[in-house]
């Protein structure tokens, strides 16, 4: 079985966040780069799948040189192959452009049975790239997966559970499939030191736009079909006011205030 994983490097949003408000982007310098936490679940799911069904795992990412780190982390966890998709033309890509690059990479890898992704990234938080990749490739889109029940590579079938509001949806779909996973689907394992050391010495192969056969006009800032118009930090919430006294008096005060604020008449 051939298993692919899409990983993204994101800034650590648990640390301090600074915005470049005019540009509408995050100020990434000075922020620690980490593997997108949801992609860690995807990677673990790929490792579990390989353990259950035998096969090879290929991890890909689209990003600048620093993004090699996420691929090294994947190598330290014993994935078989990694590739970094990088090209100046990719800079400024929106979700669809990113998805088309990843799709091209997956096509280039060839014979992929299942692709695992995290459900969203913690910087953009759009959560659509997995579905877009599936749409571009014409593969089964399986998003918000909370459990993979079975993968039958021979008969090209996959059965998953999706977490939906109020319950679980069980879906049987055709392979190849793009599966985006939610937090808690598994417990990501940690790399041991031997893995880290071996990965540190590995040279990470790159694919540029030509290698992938991607039209440079359709990706990057040039090919973006969406644009960030504005980023604003919500104003800090003011301190609340605590009302003390008899219940009836409080009720009257609250009603008066709501009327003043024109919330009720």
């Amino acid at each position, binding site marked *: 079985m051939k298993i692919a994983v899409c990983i993204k490097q994101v800034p650590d949003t648990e*640390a301090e966040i600074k915005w470049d408000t005019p540009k509408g982007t995050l100020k990434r310098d000075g922020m620690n780069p980490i593997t997108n936490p949801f992609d860690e679940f995807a990677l673990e799911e790929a490792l579990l799948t390989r353990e259950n069904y035998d096969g090879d795992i290929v991890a890909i990412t689209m990003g600048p040189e620093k993004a090699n780190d996420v691929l090294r982390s994947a190598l330290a966890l014993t994935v078989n192959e990694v590739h970094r998709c990088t090209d100046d033309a990719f800079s400024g890509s929106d979700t669809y452009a990113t998805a088309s690059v990843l799709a091209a990479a997956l096509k280039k890898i060839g014979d992929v049975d299942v692709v695992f992704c995290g459900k969203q990234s913690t910087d953009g938080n759009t959560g659509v790239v997995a579905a877009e990749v599936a749409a571009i490739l014409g593969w089964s889109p399986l998003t918000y997966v909370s459990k993979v029940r079975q993968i039958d590579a021979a008969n090209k079938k996959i059965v998953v559970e999706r977490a939906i509001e109020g319950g679980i949806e069980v879906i049987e779909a055709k392979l190849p499939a793009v599966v985006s996973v939610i937090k808690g689907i598994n417990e990501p394992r940690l790399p041991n030191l031997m893995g880290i050391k071996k990965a540190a010495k590995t040279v990470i192969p790159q694919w540029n736009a030509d290698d992938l056969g991607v039209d440079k006009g359709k990706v990057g800032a040039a090919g973006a079909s969406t644009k960030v118009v504005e980023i604003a930090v919500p104003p800090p919430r003011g301190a609340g006011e605590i009302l003390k006294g008899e219940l009836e008096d409080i009720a009257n005060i609250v009603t008066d205030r709501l009327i003043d604020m024109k919330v009720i008449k």
Partner: protein
Amino acid sequence: MDFENQLFWTRQEVYIAKIFLPIIIGFLLLSIGLLTAFALSFWWRHYRLWHLGKDENRFDQVATRVKTVLAVMFAHVRFWKELYPGALHFLIFWGILFIFLGKIVRLFSYPVGLTNPPQNIFKYASFISEIGGLLAIMGGGMAVYRRYIIKPSRLETKSERTLIFVWGFVLLMTGYVIKGYRIAAVGVSIPSNWLSWAPVSYMVSHLILILPSEPLNELLVWHRALIHTIPAFLLFAYVFITRNPLQHFFLSPINVFFRSLKLKGILAPIPNFEEAETFGVREISAYTWKQLLDLEACTNCGRCQDVCPAHLSQKPLSPRRMTQNLKDHLRREGPKLLSTPPDQRQPEAIMEKTVGEDELWACTACMACEEACPVCIEQISRNIDLRRNLVLVETKYSSDIRLTLKNLEKSNNPWGMARGLRTDWAKDLGVNPVRNSTGALNPATEQQGIISNGVKIFSEVTDPEILFWVGCCGSFDARNQKVATSMVKILQASGIRFGILGNEEGCCGDPARRIGNEYLYQTTAEANIGIMKRYGVKKILTLCPHCFHILKNEYPQLGGDFQVIHHTEFLMELIASGRLKLTKPINKAITYHDSCYLGRANQIFEAPRKILNSIPGLKLVEMERHRQRSFCCGAGGGRMWMEEHIGTRINQMRTDQAIATEAELIGTACPYCLTMLFDGIKEKGKSETMAAYDLSELVDQSM
């Protein structure tokens, strides 16, 4: 003496010279031969087991080592911390030593002196062995009383030990009996005046009945020696052939000889880190030979267990138990490994079967066990070696450890707070980092300029005297930020030219190293060393004993040689030199908590006490467990960053000990201890009457 008896003994002398003497000599030679064989076999078997372990050089500074062995063996210096057990062991040791000395000399007297009047040396030997016997009986009696009647919790008594006691007493008694018999049978004229030289036997002789039948007496005389020498021979053989507690006679002094000559609590780096295929200890032969010797030298005395904060707070850890379990593991697995060729060995893992995970992680690395152990066993590094394997190879650890390691990796501090926030504590003290973490000039500073009276970055200080290493706690933890602030005020008041590393300061690496992530520690430490060397740092002042210990004692392993001083030493110097005047009184009773890494590890006990005595109005009250015997606050060994799920909370136990002194203040010199005791006071509901302060805060108040 009457003629009959004289004849009797003259006949005996004939027998002795022609028949008995050769038999005796033959027997002696045979016994010596056999015992030598047993002894060699003993050493060979043990050497092979130890040889399973890795190399380690413990053959340096032989003179110091010999001195320690002599001091421990003859003066029993490591035993006197507890008077009764120390005294009884002292008596037993000297008793047996005297007996041996006397007996060996006496053995020579058989071939030499029986037919001649005994020379004086034999008389002295006889006296010494008699006294020795008395000492041994006294000590033995004290031991029996303690072990079988008082029954302290730390003593485990198996039937083998009772056998040894009985055997020992039989030997002591028969020794006196045979001599007493001889005196009784012979009277006082042969060999000489026994009263002076064999007082006990002389007294025993009055209790012995001499049979009227002469032949029977003769038989008894000839065979009297056997009731003593055969059990003695069997005991010696037993010591060498089986595994028994008496082997500590040899193993313990050897262990003391090979002890660590470094300060306690210094961990060794992983040898050959670049090429190593595995890290830490998974199975028994991954330990060094000294660590294996440690296991066998343990006498199961339990002193370590009695002082271990984890054990006393009902965690599943007892250092003694772990050593004994590992010893059993070695003795079980060792022979298996030795009989298999190295490439076919499948050694059993230590973790889970021999040492449990909760047991291993409960250790706070406080070194109380190492302090208490009379035979210098090194428990801490043995534990950390197991942790290294769990962390670096098995990647098996709880989620709070995982989070801490991740935070350290990402943000260079255990809380995972942004690096840029590290200098926030000093904002109001005037720190304006000149450069941000990528090296670009901070635009705010460009506009405002540097506030010259505040806290500056080291590289911006002209002719700095010292680098103030604030540490992660002083930088990020609210309670400890106040300590850092006090320290700054003291530095400013004393006119010291100091700087901080600011956002370039990274975690010293202690949490990572004690948790077992040697790789993360090395990366962090090497980065810190590089930064400090780049800025030409020579002298470092630390707030925290863990930072102090690692910067001073462990960074040199990675090439970082700096002069490191802890803030208590520094404050004491300032006070002693008069640069700092303490005038405002604090009229309260205070008890001082000795931190493990300041006290036991680095032997700094006086400096903090001198500081407290210099503050007018303070009255120092010591807790029962203080100085070397201080009780850990519970935060060491990386445990500050782990949840405590089992048993009583260690910090509450220590707080109880402080409350028992009825002091109003607890003085600390460590941010971990301060946090733990501060929390402990709150948890015990004593916040109205008690408060915990760092010594620098008290000095600041008194300035």
